[in-house]
């Protein structure tokens, strides 16, 4: 069955989202810069390389443990720019607000955005506000765009993974996704989980200072680590092997995933990055990440292998091997 309507799956960040981009957006807008499909665009202007990115934020609930739609909107774009190797500097903010939305909540969100911007050392320099009739949006939607300059020596991109690269994950997986799921479903657990929403630009700066041989940077947001690794394997035409035992997951998050039938590999992260680093620099880069306040649980989770181009395989805890595929659509709660 082909689709004639937009389904929620089209926004999941998985294969169905990709098909929308590939089959509809690229044929209409395609150009050499867009076709790269990086987290942001990399453009050259007067000898400077700029990383430019935009993202829209909708989340239910808008306030959740560890953050809100406000800091998510700032951190998300800051991180997209950082993943292009850019040093984010300026942001724009577009607000679409539902009629009747609480002014107090709006102020809270804006203050959280300002705090996040201060933390990331970026400045909001332009913006726009629209109000739409009740029901036309769900509470508040936020768009942020931003850019940053990419230092000369920095060359990262999802096509640059090379055989032998070590793959570093900067901390525990699925914290944000698991938090949102439990909040949305009104599930309360004994020990709370919190979103990992955080800016990663300072971490990235530390990483390049420690070891320049960083080939790929990616923040595994929608679709999670599993989907991000598949995208990189595909675009770099390399194989990837990850080690289940080495993947950092909080016990609480693992427990929630067990109960609800979700795979942490496919749940969103909002303050984590994946780095593909030449083996000679890997340990130093790992140390640099661990020295950052948001990278204490960083670990080498796998490597780029010869053969199996486009595929991700996992060495399981009991010593078996299996494929890790890209997320297809939204993960849905199962029957049993």
């Amino acid at each position, binding site marked *: *069955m*082909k689709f004639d*309507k*937009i*389904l*929620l*799956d089209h926004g999941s960040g998985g*294969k*169905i989202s990709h*098909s929308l981009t590939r089959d509809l957006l690229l044929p209409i807008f395609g150009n050499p810069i867009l076709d790269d499909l990086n987290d942001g665009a990399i453009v050259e202007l007067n000898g400077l390389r700029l990383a430019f990115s935009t993202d829209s934020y909708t989340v239910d609930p808008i306030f959740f443990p560890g953050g809100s739609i406000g800091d998510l909107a700032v951190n998300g774009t800051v991180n997209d720019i950082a993943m292009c190797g850019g040093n984010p500097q300026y942001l724009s903010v577009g607000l679409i607000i539902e009629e009747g939305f609480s002014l107090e909540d709006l102020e809270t969100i804006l203050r959280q955005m300002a705090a996040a911007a201060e933390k990331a050392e970026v400045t909001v320099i332009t913006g726009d506000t629209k109000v739409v009739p009740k029901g036309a949006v769900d509470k508040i939607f936020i768009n942020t765009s931003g850019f940053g300059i990419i230092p000369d020596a920095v060359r990262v991109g999802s096509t640059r993974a090379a055989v032998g690269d070590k793959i570093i994950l900067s901390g525990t997986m699925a914290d944000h996704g698991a938090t949102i799921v439990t909040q949305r*479903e009104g*599930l309360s*657990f*004994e*020990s709370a989980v919190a979103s990992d929403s955080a800016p990663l630009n300072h971490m990235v700066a530390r990483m390049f200072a420690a070891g320049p041989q960083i080939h790929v940077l990616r923040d595994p947001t929608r679709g999670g680590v599993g989907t991000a690794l598949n995208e990189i394997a595909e675009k770099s035409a390399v194989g990837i092997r990850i080690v289940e035992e080495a993947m950092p997951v909080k*016990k*609480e998050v*693992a*427990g*929630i995933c*067990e*109960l*609800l*039938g979700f795979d942490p590999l496919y749940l969103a992260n909002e303050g984590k990055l994946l780095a593909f680093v030449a083996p000679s620099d890997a340990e130093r880069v790992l140390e640099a990440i661990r020295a950052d306040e948001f990278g204490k649980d960083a670990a080498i989770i796998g490597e780029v292998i010869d053969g*199996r181009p486009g*595929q991700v*395989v*996992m*060495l*399981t*805890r*009991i*010593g*078996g*091997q*299996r*494929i890790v*595929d890209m997320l*297809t*659509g939204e*993960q*849905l*709660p*199962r*029957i*049993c």
Partner: protein
Amino acid sequence: MALKHIDEYRDAALSRPLIDKINRISRTPARLMEVCGTHTVSIFRSGIRSMLPDTVSLLSGPGCPVCVTDQKEIDAFIALARLDDVIVTTFGDLMRVPGTLSSLQKEKADGGDIRIVYSTTDAVEIARKNPEKQVVFLGVGFETTAPTIAASISTARRLGLDNYSVYSAHKLVPPALDALMANPQAQIAGFILPGHVSVVIGLDAYRPFFETHRIPCVVAGFEPVDLLQALAMLVEQIEGGAPALANAYGRAVTAEGNPIARKLLDEIFEPADVAWRGIGVIPQSGLKIREAFSDMDAEKIFDIQLPESRDPKGCACGEVLTGTKTPPECPLYKTICTPIDPVGPCMVSTEGTCAAYYKYYDDR
């Protein structure tokens, strides 16, 4: 809320000796079927297939609830979702299953009020909060989830709700085992019996089946060590020529099962001859709502128009569910049937055999 005692059952030090044992003693080529969809996924996710000797092949059985749901029933669910003033509540698996003309997911995009719930308690709550609407729960699944659905009917009755109903498409495992054995093509040499179903019905529920067929049967849990333990026991039975009905999930499964759940099932439901996708009608293999609760039986309350149901053309779901084909043997697999654009239900459900192959199977 860290779950306890999971790590132990995923421990390499515990699983290694079991893998070694299976590789050491297995001589006779044997096709073993895991009946349960959660087993299928767990076996793939843990990489067990990559560690078994060539003599042991694993078949995935008809234990994915969505997969065995008859096309007519899927069409009925979709028709219910199109009715005015009806809220359809369901577990998530059913959303993407293609019916003859549509799917619940598409109906939702078209404005149908379809809500995914984690528990039937939520469905009853939705009914309580929306007295002006009819709330229907789509009852799909085996003995595992059927008691919770029975409980929702009993709760709705107690609360005096007159707007809650269930469409019961429940299936029972033991009669399906008999039907599988009736097909010699599958050449099944042993069964890994489902864990959660057995928690409810108990080991003794399989006794008549075992006495009839004298085939190795082991109930298994869901962690890698559980599954390897069951596989080792099956291979041991096969090599020793001594089939038995055994329990490798003793920490959860008893001989008699859960008496409260069984009583509740019996109170609300009665067995009926029902159709399984790909298998056909199996006598006394389904659960329908008893007459005493017919005012909460969506099948009886609503007058729905069904299209002429037809199973998808060329789809081998039926053969896959009965172990006579593996997904890669279906001409549609990975060609025109993918999780993005699934033809049959086995490619849709996360527990579906084709989806599990697509997602995890290493064909290199």
